[in-house]
């Protein structure tokens, strides 16, 4: 019964959060702490801190983590599957629909209008990341040097993350 509740909770979280990642946190908090009482608020904050530091989408990490807390490995599989299921179904339907209407001028016009907006959205996202990342002079230097190396010297993004971690350990 608890496992069924877990599955349904994360299905809800997957189906109703737009924008991904951090937009999910308030809903996860409500389901996990208020509705089902699976965790205390303190435990939830600890988990979020770890989720933020581990690679991968925040929603997936949270689902795997909380699923494990509630129902072990089986719980983590159920919660993770539930959180991605709505996205996967909706996206397949949209992709199917768009491939049928790809010659429609309306679809073409809509995307022409949307492209500059998406570029603006990415800039907005980088502004909010930058606000948390550039906390002092050292962090601005790390960011600036890496931007130069990635953009103009073809440094691989994965290598950039590893270098940045090492630089952080050295200078702080």
């Amino acid at each position, binding site marked *: 019964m608890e496992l069924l509740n877990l599955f349904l909770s994360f299905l809800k979280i997957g189906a109703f959060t737009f924008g991904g990642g951090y937009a999910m946190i308030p809903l996860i908090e409500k389901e996990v702490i208020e509705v089902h009482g699976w965790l205390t608020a303190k435990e939830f904050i600890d988990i979020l801190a770890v989720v933020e530091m581990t690679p991968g989408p925040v929603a997936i990490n949270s689902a795997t983590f909380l699923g494990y807390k509630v129902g072990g490995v089986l719980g983590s599989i159920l919660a993770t599957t539930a959180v991605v299921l709505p996205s996967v179904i909706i996206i397949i339907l949209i992709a199917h629909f768009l491939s049928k209407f790809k010659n429609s001028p309306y679809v073409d016009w809509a995307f022409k209008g949307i492209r500059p907006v998406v570029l603006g*959205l990415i800039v907005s996202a980088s502004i909010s990341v930058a606000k948390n990342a550039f906390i002092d002079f050292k962090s601005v230097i790390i960011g600036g040097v890496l931007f130069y190396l990635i953009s103009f010297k073809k440094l691989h993004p994965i290598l950039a993350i590893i270098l940045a971690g090492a630089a952080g350990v050295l200078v702080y």
Partner: protein
Amino acid sequence: MYFEMFKAFFKVGAFTIGGGYAMLPFIQDEVVEKHQWLTTEEFLDVLAIAEVTPGPVAVNTSTYVGYKLKGVKGAIVCTLGTILPSFLIILLIVTSLWKYRNNPVIDKAFLGIRPAVAALIFTAVYKLARKMDISKYMLVISVLTVLAVAFIDISPIVVILVSAFGAIGYYKFKENK
């Protein structure tokens, strides 16, 4: 081909720290530059779809790319690739590494990694903008979007829908003239 797809998205899932748009430079690197499964325009279209549909942006993007390449099977393969690294790493943490979470070395490494994530996203914007050959009117729309979303806190979904219907209206009007 399935293995290539799985590997590409496994890398995206394994190295994206911070969620959301932090995965964008990695997806761009694998999907647009290395494998050329999508053009720059298609990539932006997928991002728009990922933004207006519920769920994590990385999952939405991998499902879409997978479906486009190999149908439903492809969608499942790419999505599994994206979520498997997180799933395994989190299980490893809860079962054995939880006690190291307050280690100061990890905190220091993250002080360095956060600016790197910002630099990666800036690079993605720079690369996309350079390839798109942006007209003056497009630049105005991009700047207005930043103002609306980053400073006035208007939902990205609203901005996307308004611009989609606005563009349809504009081109329809131009066609009828």
